[in-house]
């Protein structure tokens, strides 16, 4: 990849993630309300006005045509190019990667990436499976994860208790994050006695759904309103599926995305002080950490047991509670991962602050498949 100029984060914005469905006293909020709130917060954080923004990339999955235009017109109408991106759970990171490249390539000096979602009410149609496979009952996302989990247990000896520990750690961190949908810790016993959804995965192994909005403004260093605690985008990588079968082992797309990002950043896993791994299902966080290169295959459960990934551990993981606590608004999730790393490096993470975080990695992956990695550094 070509050498580009330095790209820095000017500001970030995030709404509280919640179910904005009008039930049980909760307010009804549309995706464009959540998106525009996050964008306005990012502008305030950056000390910028909408007229400073030269282009916008907006990630969402279920919000329909021109969703970014609808969110942005609540903030300003300045004629700038707005491009909407649907890349499943990696939509937000896909948007940020394009914003980063536009600034890095000196096409623009100041670009915003947003991600927002209002999850569909009722069952989500699973268009990712052909009809005959839906008729055979394959279209259950947790079942796919369950089968991966069974393999992981077979190959590493990991147990259901290990997976419960991921939920416990993340929900404990989430209790310190006012933006998270879930703010009550859970115990191992509660996880292991929650109802089974797809053996061996239980209700409390799964992240809850949520609605939410996120935004990240990137710019060239000279456009920053303050040179205090500057955070640089050290890498932005996006990798899709690579063919493989039992006969021909293909390269893992998650590992490839991490390797590309580390190479771009000129840093390695050992240089990361904080990580946002991908925990749609709690076992996933363990194999994700292994695939991203933070430990060898099968080592993550032991490191988790030893407290390595705790807030006070050597490598804190999902310090904001991860998807498990925040909830999962598909288009907003990936940038929430990035925003937590930014807060940690800035020293603005409040009660969940990691001591002296200089660099961190945010990961988002999912259907496609896609795997997106962002590395930020001081």
């Amino acid at each position, binding site marked *: 990849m070509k050498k580009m100029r330095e790209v820095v984060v000017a500001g970030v914005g995030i709404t509280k993630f919640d179910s904005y469905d009008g039930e049980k006293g909760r307010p009804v909020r549309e995706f464009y309300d959540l998106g525009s709130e996050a964008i306005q917060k990012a502008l305030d954080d950056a000390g910028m006005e909408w007229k400073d923004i030269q282009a916008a990339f907006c990630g969402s999955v279920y919000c329909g045509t021109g969703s970014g235009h609808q969110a942005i017109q609540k903030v300003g109408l300045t004629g700038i190019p707005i491009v909407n991106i649907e890349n499943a759970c990696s939509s937000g990171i896909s948007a940020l990667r394009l914003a980063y490249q536009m600034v890095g390539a000196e096409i623009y000096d100041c670009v915003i990436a947003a991600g927002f979602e209002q999850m569909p009410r009722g069952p989500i149609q*699973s268009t990712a499976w052909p009809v*005959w496979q839906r*008729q*055979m009952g394959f279209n259950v996302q947790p079942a796919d994860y369950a089968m991966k989990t069974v393999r992981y247990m077979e190959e590493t000896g990991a147990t259901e208790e290990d997976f419960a520990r991921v939920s416990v750690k993340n929900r404990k961190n989430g209790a310190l994050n006012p933006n998270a949908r879930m703010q009550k810790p859970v115990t191992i016993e509660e996880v292991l006695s929650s109802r089974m959804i797809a*053996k061996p*995965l239980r209700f409390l192994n799964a992240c809850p759904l949520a609605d939410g909005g996120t935004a990240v403004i990137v710019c060239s260093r000279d456009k920053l309103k303050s040179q205090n605690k500057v955070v640089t985008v050290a890498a932005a990588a996006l990798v899709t599926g690579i063919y493989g*079968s039992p006969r021909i082992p293909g390269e893992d797309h998650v590992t490839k995305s991490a390797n590309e990002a580390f190479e771009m950043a000129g840093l390695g896993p050992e240089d990361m002080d904080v990580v946002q791994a991908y925990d749609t299902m709690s076992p996933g966080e363990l194999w994700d950490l292994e695939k991203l290169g933070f430990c060898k295959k099968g080592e993550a459960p032991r490191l988790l047991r030893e407290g390595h990934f705790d807030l006070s551990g050597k490598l804190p993981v999902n310090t904001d509670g991860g998807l498990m606590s925040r909830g999962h608004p598909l288009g907003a999730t990936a940038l929430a991962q990035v925003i937590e790393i930014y807060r940690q490096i800035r020293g603005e993470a409040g009660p969940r602050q990691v001591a002296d975080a200089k660099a961190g990695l945010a990961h988002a992956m999912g259907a496609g498949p896609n795997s997106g990695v962002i590395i930020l550094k001081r």
Partner: protein
Amino acid sequence: MSDTKKTIPLREGLWTDKGHDGTPHLLGHRCLNCGEVFFPQKENGTCTNCHSTKLELIELSRKGKVFAFSVVMLRPPGGYYRGDVPYALANVELPEGIVVEGLVTDINQDDIKVGMEMELTIDKLHDDDEGNTLMTYKFRPSAA
């Protein structure tokens, strides 16, 4: 027969009821260039591994081993699946070096294990809206 209700396959081309040995076999494609095997057949006629278009139709082995499985406790979205819940799914690895996903039948769902020998069976999926019986391929414990 005057009865207009029929027994029909879920989808044409997934299996043959009478293979070379007179028993049902899944139908796949083998790439004549790189040897990779695919199930189901590649509708676009192109090998995903090497992009060759020289593919031959093959009957896959009837038996394989459980590579991974799950017992699904919730009804899938969309109303396409009309069978019982919970139901068992397995990825079964065939000697050809591919993994095939399918429903598992004729077993206590708690007894499914990785490595267990499975064999192909053609079984009822459900009745469609016209009253026809839709058939599909499933896996069941191998009769040794």
